[in-house]
């Protein structure tokens, strides 16, 4: 206990009749006693004291002290020589906490009363301090939660809502009030729950304390919204708190900036590809033509050679000795040079060079198609050709470790932006290839990519399947999230999966991913026959 401070208000020695101070000193060394003679001095010191003793002899001054201390300061005990009931009543009415009259055991009674009052006062003060602190914390807490921009919900061990903040009601107005006691599935939109795997997020938080945040999306209420979802365990009773913070304008802006950057990158790569294609085109023009011509000329020269050999044979058989010699020399030279082999091989070399130049021609064509500036107009395209030309471009990268299988069905022409779709196919192909590469590095062997197309009643389905390591993220849809970290697409000609998702969505279609039963993954693109919902030029 910290040192006790007692203020004693009593008259001067002349009028003093009670041994107040002497009695108080029996409380021991830890007591500090301050003696005053008037009300003002007493009230000044009272705020720091644990107890005030007022001698009734002070009369009006005493009453002033009592009224000054009423309800505010430390308790006041009145000491008096008048042992009458009236006097006692009077002191209590004036505000005293207790009254001690002069008597034989004054020396014992006063300290006991003093101690009792001091203890009660201190306990009450301590309780009041704690209560005030609690109230202040509660106010702060309420202020924070009420103004918190995110939706906050506290769930009990059965996933029922215990409490929500105003932000929650604002974010999900369709839920309807009251919230308490209702299960989460009842209150949040179904697509939000599914896309974020929120039930599972909460369960994991309850079990393990917390989990990495996820993105959940919903179309409820008309507009598409995305939320950053987090859950944390609250207490040992299995309560958890779920926070859903809407992805704000800034995030959306960042995402758009990323897309613009990607588009610009693609545009400059496109320009580069176009320039390279042009530079290659001209020399390829005359190489190709010259090879054909050389093949023709070779044929001519061969005929000449055969005629020469025929002449040499006649000469060697029937000619004059000089002619015979010349003929045999020619035939001998032909044998020495292995002329037949030379001609055959020459022709072969020309054929192989022509094949090479054909391949270059196709690559240039594909590069040109790929880099062709998109003028924003919808074009009716055969997706088999788009897929094929894209596959051709990446084939050179893939052919050593991957087998490419094509299962194309006849497809109706589809209104679309072929350049954008080709970029999507490019990305899916490169991803498939990289997944296989990784698996092969680990376990050896080789891999297979299957490209399938099919016509459905209302659209076209294009799928890219691989037998790589599969998608290890759950839920699988997370790979389409804007800032989900994935490896950089190695070739640099692909777009992030988020952008692919966006492109397909803007075509009115859907991009899905799933793991295959035997290992690996399949990415499916569905595109409606009707084309994009509203044609956005240059989108």
């Amino acid at each position: 206990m910290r040192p006790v401070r007692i203020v004693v208000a009593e008259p001067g020695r002349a009028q003093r009749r009670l041994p107040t101070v002497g009695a108080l000193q029996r409380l021991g060394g830890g007591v500090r006693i301050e003696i005053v003679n008037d009300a003002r001095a007493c009230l000044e010191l009272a705020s720091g004291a644990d107890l005030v003793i007022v001698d009734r002899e002070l009369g009006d001054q005493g009453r002033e002290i009592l009224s000054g201390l009423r309800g505010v300061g430390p308790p006041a005990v009145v000491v008096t020589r008048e042992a009458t009931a009236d006097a006692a009543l009077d002191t209590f009415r004036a505000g005293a906490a207790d009254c001690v009259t002069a008597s034989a055991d004054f020396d014992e009674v006063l300290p006991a009363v003093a101690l009792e009052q001091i203890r009660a006062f201190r306990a009450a003060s301590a309780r009041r301090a704690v209560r005030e602190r609690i109230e202040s914390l509660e106010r702060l807490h309420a202020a924070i939660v009420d103004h918190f921009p995110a939706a906050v919900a506290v769930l009990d061990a059965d996933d029922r809502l215990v409490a929500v903040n105003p932000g929650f009601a604002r974010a999900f107005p369709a839920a309807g009030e009251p919230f308490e006691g209702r299960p989460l599935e009842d209150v949040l939109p179904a697509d939000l729950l599914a896309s974020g795997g929120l039930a599972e997020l909460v369960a994991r938080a309850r079990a393990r304390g917390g989990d990495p945040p996820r993105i959940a999306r919903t179309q409820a209420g008309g507009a598409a919204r995305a939320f950053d979802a987090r859950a944390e365990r609250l207490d040992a009773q299995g309560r958890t708190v779920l926070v859903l913070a809407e992805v704000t304008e800034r995030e959306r802006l960042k995402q758009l900036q990323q897309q613009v950057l990607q588009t610009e990158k693609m545009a400059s790569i496109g320009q580069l590809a176009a320039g390279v294609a042009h530079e290659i085109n001209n020399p390829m023009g005359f190489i190709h033509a010259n090879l054909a011509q050389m093949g023709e000329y070779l044929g001519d020269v061969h005929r000449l050679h055969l005629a020469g050999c025929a002449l040499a044979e006649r000469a060697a058989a029937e000619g004059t000795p000089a002619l015979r010699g010349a003929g045999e020399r020619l035939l001998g030279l032909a044998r020495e040079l292995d002329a037949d082999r030379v001609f055959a091989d020459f022709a072969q070399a020309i054929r192989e060079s022509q094949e090479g130049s054909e391949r270059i021609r196709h690559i240039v064509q594909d590069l040109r198609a790929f880099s062709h500036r998109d003028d924003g107009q919808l074009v009716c395209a055969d997706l088999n050709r788009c897929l094929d030309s894209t596959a051709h471009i990446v084939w050179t990268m893939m052919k050593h470790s991957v087998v490419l299988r094509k299962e194309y069905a006849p497809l109706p022409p589809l209104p679309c932006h072929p350049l954008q779709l080709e970029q999507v196919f490019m990305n899916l192909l490169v991803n498939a290839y990289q997944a296989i590469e990784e698996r092969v590095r680990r376990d050896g062997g080789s891999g297979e990519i299957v490209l399938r197309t099919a016509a459905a009643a209302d659209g076209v389905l294009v799928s890219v399947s691989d037998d790589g390591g599969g998608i290890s993220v759950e839920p699988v849809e997370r790979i389409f999230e804007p800032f989900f970290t994935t490896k950089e697409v190695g070739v640099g000609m692909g777009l992030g999966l988020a952008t692919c998702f966006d492109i397909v969505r803007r075509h009115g279609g859907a991009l899905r991913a799933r793991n295959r039963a035997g290992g690996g993954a399949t990415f499916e693109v569905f595109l409606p026959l009707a084309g994009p919902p509203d044609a956005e030029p240059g989108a």
Partner: protein
Amino acid sequence: MDDEAHILAALRRALRREGYRILTAASPSEALALLETEAVDAILSDHKMPGMSGLELLAAAARRRPAAARLLITGWPDAIPGERLAALGIRALIPKPWDDAELKRALRDALAR
């Protein structure tokens, strides 16, 4: 006409046995000068050249030798709108790299009309 010498040589080689008299020009101005003095039956021109494009050249050629067949050979067939070809009376558009057989056939068809 083409501004690349090797292409001219390859074209000449390809058409050598067709029985034509072949004149070559390495620039539009050279080509136009030739057209002043020679009565040609067909003009085969590249498109992307410094100074004047193939379309412009063929338009000018049409004024000097209206009877001559006009053909365009180019690495950028998509860059040329079909209406312009028709307006200029261009009989054929041959993509680069060209196929010799296709080239010969196009020329024969153009001259037959």
